């Protein structure tokens, strides 16, 4: 078989690994629009913050592809996919044939429709190239505005603060990380951020960005004086990279819907990672979880199915962890809306600690933890309960460290 994988990040590489562990014969070509060696997007802020050196960003070397007998085509975009002829067309005109295709093109950052936002001195923190650019621009004393307050945006703010820049964060909604944290947790994080000297404004609408002669950016907001900064970093969401499927029979709908075998509507064509909308651990059929662990899982399932194993996906359990502003923020499952559900809370916001586990009829469905590393471990231990929908009657005991494995529950 001829296998083609588009994408050289979490989903694509995971699929490659899994496919090869089953099928060592078929030919594999891996195509990627980025020319850089495979790197870890998760680690970009760590590099920018000078926590890890440049070389540690890379998670594959050329010999890794050789060992797996993979032909690589880097730095070339795929223009078009034609399932009927089983070919795809690259931007330089070349075509590649396939028996099975995996689309793992990921997503790219959104630019909100703010007047003047598109232009010089406005960046994202998404690719290695973004990161290298920002690295050269980060100088102590420079002023930066971060628009958005999701994981990426706040990581950008944290990195900038650590590099000595003067930072402000603008969030449209009434609290930071509105899709990730509840009010209490958001308040705690908000406080930690401000303790580090970063200005945070919520419920603020950015109306326009002007550029002055000296290259300074003047940001206009509703009801506030303009803010002058040297650069802006936008972390306001991502959109899936589905352009290559325009005009093709592969269905797209805010991403590529896939079933539990990572199959698109076209037989032989799969999708995985940020670009895909797949099943969740809670039974939803098509959701995007633009998270590294989900991309890895998608890739694994796609790889297995492409190799002929009929392996269904149990569903993505959205989980994420990041450390910033002196606190570790970890989240898993559904934990924001808790009406009609039970929640078990450890509220020690005075000691920078907040852990909340949400249960539906005694079964945990999500958790968020702000605190230290040990609290992240709690969520890790909770994962099997959420995944397997097991009852957890003694949440207090669980939080104390009991019930190492689900079987311990009486």
């Amino acid at each position, binding site marked *: 078989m001829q296998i083609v994988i588009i994408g050289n990040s979490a989903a694509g590489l995971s699929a490659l690994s899994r496919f090869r562990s089953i099928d060592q014969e078929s030919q594999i070509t891996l195509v990627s629009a980025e020319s850089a060696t495979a790197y870890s997007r998760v680690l970009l802020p760590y590099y920018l913050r000078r926590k890890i050196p440049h070389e*540690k960003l890379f998670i594959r070397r050329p010999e890794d592809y050789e060992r797996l007998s993979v032909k690589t085509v880097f730095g070339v975009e795929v223009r078009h996919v034609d399932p009927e002829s089983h070919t795809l067309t690259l931007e330089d005109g070349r075509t590649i044939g396939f028996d099975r295709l995996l689309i793992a093109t990921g997503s790219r950052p959104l630019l909100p429709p703010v007047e003047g936002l598109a232009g010089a001195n406005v960046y994202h923190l998404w690719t290695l190239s973004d990161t290298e650019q920002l690295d050269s621009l980060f100088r102590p004393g420079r002023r930066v505005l971060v628009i958005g307050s999701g994981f990426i945006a706040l990581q950008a703010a944290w990195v900038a603060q650590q590099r000595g820049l003067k930072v402000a964060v603008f969030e449209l909604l009434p609290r930071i990380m509105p899709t990730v944290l509840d009010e209490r947790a958001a308040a705690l994080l908000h406080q930690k951020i401000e303790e580090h000297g970063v200005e945070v404004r919520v419920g603020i609408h950015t109306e326009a960005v002007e550029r002055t002669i000296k290259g300074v950016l003047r940001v206009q907001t509703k009801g506030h004086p303009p803010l002058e900064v040297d650069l802006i970093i936008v972390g306001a969401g991502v959109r899936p990279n589905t352009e290559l499927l325009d005009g093709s029979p592969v269905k797209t709908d805010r991403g590529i819907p896939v079933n539990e075998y990572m199959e698109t509507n076209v037989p032989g064509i799969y999708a995985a990672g940020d670009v895909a909308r797949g099943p969740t651990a809670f039974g939803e059929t098509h959701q995007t979880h633009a998270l590294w662990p989900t991309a890895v899982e998608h890739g694994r399932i796609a790889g297995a199915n492409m190799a002929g194993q009929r392996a269904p996906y149990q569903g993505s359990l959205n989980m994420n962890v990041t450390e910033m502003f002196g606190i570790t923020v970890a989240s898993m499952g559904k934990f924001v809306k808790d009406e009609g559900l039970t929640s078990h809370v450890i509220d020690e916001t005075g000691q920078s600690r907040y852990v909340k586990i949400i249960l539906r009829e005694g079964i945990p469905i999500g958790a968020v933890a702000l605190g230290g590393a040990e609290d992240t471990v709690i969520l890790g231990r909770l994962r099997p309960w959420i995944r397997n929908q097991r009852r957890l009657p003694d949440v207090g005991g669980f939080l104390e460290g009991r019930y190492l494995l689900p079987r311990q529950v009486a």
Partner: protein
Amino acid sequence: MRIVEVDPTSCVACRNCEYACAFKQTGDFDTKDSNIRVNFYPEERVCIPWTCVHCGEGWCMEVCPAGAILRNPETGAVEIDANRCAGCKMCLLACPSGSIHFDKVELVSKKCDLCGGDPACVKFCTSGALQFVEEEEAYSFRRESLDNKLKRLFGLNKRGS
């Protein structure tokens, strides 16, 4: 590969294993640095030693965004390369048994690496609750225990011999 077989019915929570492991990592006995942890529940009188079981398909290995968690080809142990670890804590979130911990000083994740094939916890387990055995033979003592019970039940109760 050989693994650390754990018998909670022989463990007395003396914590020699925790001390021995912590000592191997740091030269001190701070049990927070130990890769093996013992939980003792006084009301139920249950002692549970637990460490990484080096899963055949380690989720920590799969999910690590730095590619820092790899299997040691000699011992079969799942090991964190501290030089590659960026301290992102994704593995803490991944491990279902809470067997990875974070070192706040070195800012990397730490876990059991079977001490390169001669686990200290097993050497210093005074009760014999920890044994280092081939995975195919692990927990065969449960079968032997059951055999002993059946032997007694079915008429070899030698009173007075």
